[in-house]
């Protein structure tokens, strides 16, 4: 990156450190923090959407939808989430490829599952074997996002279901008395009021989601944990920047990153709670009203 870094073996002390920390691989390490942030930015709204649909389904009059919604909500309660992460990534991949297999190669006669193998025709491979490395990475990342969204959607569904039930019954009855239809009541009365009840649970989930991001590493994405392992391991003299095993320091850095991220999130969420409580028929809202008067 800098001109004086051209020959690392001549450097020492501070300049060595500066050049080391700006080497090409370290830049990839810094970019991978972006990967984590992108994952959070994409997953959070998708999971919220999944959760919203799950909660609506669980409240539905239609028994089929209700059972489906409740099952989705229940699935995360008894089973470790990590099992889902392991399961969904392989299962989704195989489902997609099986589907493509039937569409693109209807004449293929060999069975897909033969004892120890899962084999689809070459045209059904996602991404195609010939595709450049970057597409494999993007596909892996996409699978990870969907998996995160499914699992966290189930958690979110739990929170939103509770929040919808927490909106005072009288509010909904008043809406009905004014002649609002079920749909209007839902959109204009229930949804705007539920957020303040959902916020403590959602804040919790956000903090959990942040802490779940190292699981990207398990899903095969080159995330910050991958690079910390890679860069921290001891490097012999054949490398440009030889050093001992520094993984402890890299992981301490990751720890500090997560703690800082958690702290900042807590502060922002506390402000948001205050904002949403404004004018609500809750204790917090009442306290704010009294303080202003």
């Amino acid at each position, binding site marked *: 990156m800098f001109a004086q870094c051209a020959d690392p073996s001549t450097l020492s002390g501070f300049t060595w450190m500066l050049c080391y920390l700006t080497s090409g691989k370290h830049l990839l390490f810094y970019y991978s923090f972006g990967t984590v942030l992108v994952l959070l930015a994409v997953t959070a709204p998708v999971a919220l959407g999944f959760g919203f649909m799950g909660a609506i389904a669980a409240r539905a009059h239609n028994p089929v939808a209700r059972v489906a919604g409740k099952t989705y909500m229940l699935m*995360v*309660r*008894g*089973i*470790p*989430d*990590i*099992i889902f992460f*392991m*399961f969904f990534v*392989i*299962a989704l991949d*195989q489902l997609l490829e099986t589907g493509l297999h039937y569409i693109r190669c209807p004449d293929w006669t060999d069975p897909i*599952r033969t*004892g*120890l*193998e*899962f084999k689809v025709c070459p045209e059904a491979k996602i991404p195609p074997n010939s595709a450049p490395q970057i597409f494999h990475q993007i596909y892996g990342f996409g699978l990870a996002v969907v998996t995160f969204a499914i699992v966290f959607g*189930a*958690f979110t569904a*739990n*929170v939103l279901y509770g929040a919808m039930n927490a909106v005072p019954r009288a509010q909904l009855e008043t809406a009905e008395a004014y002649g609002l239809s079920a749909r209007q009541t839902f959109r204009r009365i229930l949804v705007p009021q539920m957020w303040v009840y959902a916020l403590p*649970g959602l804040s*919790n*989930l956000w*903090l*959990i989601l942040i*802490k*779940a*991001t*190292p*699981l990207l*590493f*398990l899903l095969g994405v080159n995330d910050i*944990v991958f690079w*910390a392992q890679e860069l921290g391991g001891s490097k012999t003299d054949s490398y440009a920047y030889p050093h001992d*095993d520094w*993984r*402890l320091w890299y*992981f*301490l850095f*990751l*720890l500090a990153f*997560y*703690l800082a991220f*958690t*702290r900042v999130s807590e502060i922002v969420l506390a402000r948001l709670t205050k904002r949403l409580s404004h004018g609500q028929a809750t204790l917090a809202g009442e306290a704010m009203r009294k303080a202003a008067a």
Partner: protein
Amino acid sequence: MTMTCTETIAAYAFRSIGFGERMLPKSDFTLCQQFTLIGSGLIWNLYYGALALLAGFFLANALALAKSARSRWLRKPAEWFIFTFRGSPLFIQFFLGYQAFVLLPKNGIDLLGVTIHTDWLTKAWCGALVVLFLNTAAYSAEIFYGALRSVPKGDIEAADAYGITGFKRFRRILWPTMLRLGWPAYTNEAIFLFHATTLVFFSSFPAFRQQGDALYYASYFADKTYNPFIPYPIVGFYFICLTLLLTFAFNAVNKHLNRHLPSNQRARIRLRPQLIR
């Protein structure tokens, strides 16, 4: 060579702790083998969960007291400990723990003529247990701290009126009430601690002679058969059973803690899936 299911169970039921058949099945996987080996791995999950929970309970009580202490020197370290372990991913804690334990001197530390062995800490059965213990202590401490702060003021005033003070007041009045108020949340913590033991498989701690936990064997089967639809649901099934068992046991304790209250005031345990780490 085919085995009947009874033979499989005899050969593999304690495979994860070093008894029975050494070779893992290589081909022709049966459902029975998968159930037996994954169940065998579950022994490790139970071991980590139970011991970490038991030891963590005591540290959590101490931390909760320290956090509510008036002295800064007690309060600040407890607050930082709890924040560090609750604010960072368990996964990173495992990695960090392993790297730190590896750096300890190999031959043990000589302290006043007694050698403290440190090589245990780099093995999963001890190192991962220590990390889980510290982690659950921090989470439980926050629960107990919250419960301690919600002990009714009247209880303390009544104790004062009766002349119960100092440690006796803590042991007879504060502590039982704190435990009672915190118990439903603590039940959830226990359940999710057991769930968290599955992460040991991904920590750097090596699995010794293919003796791993439930997830270790599940991923072994998933890798060999390219079929995730059987082994992972089996793990799920085992954990649902474990969750039900834990809820049952903790419910019995909850009943005991609430036995003096009229039935409509008793705390009920509700599963709140918000505690994964």
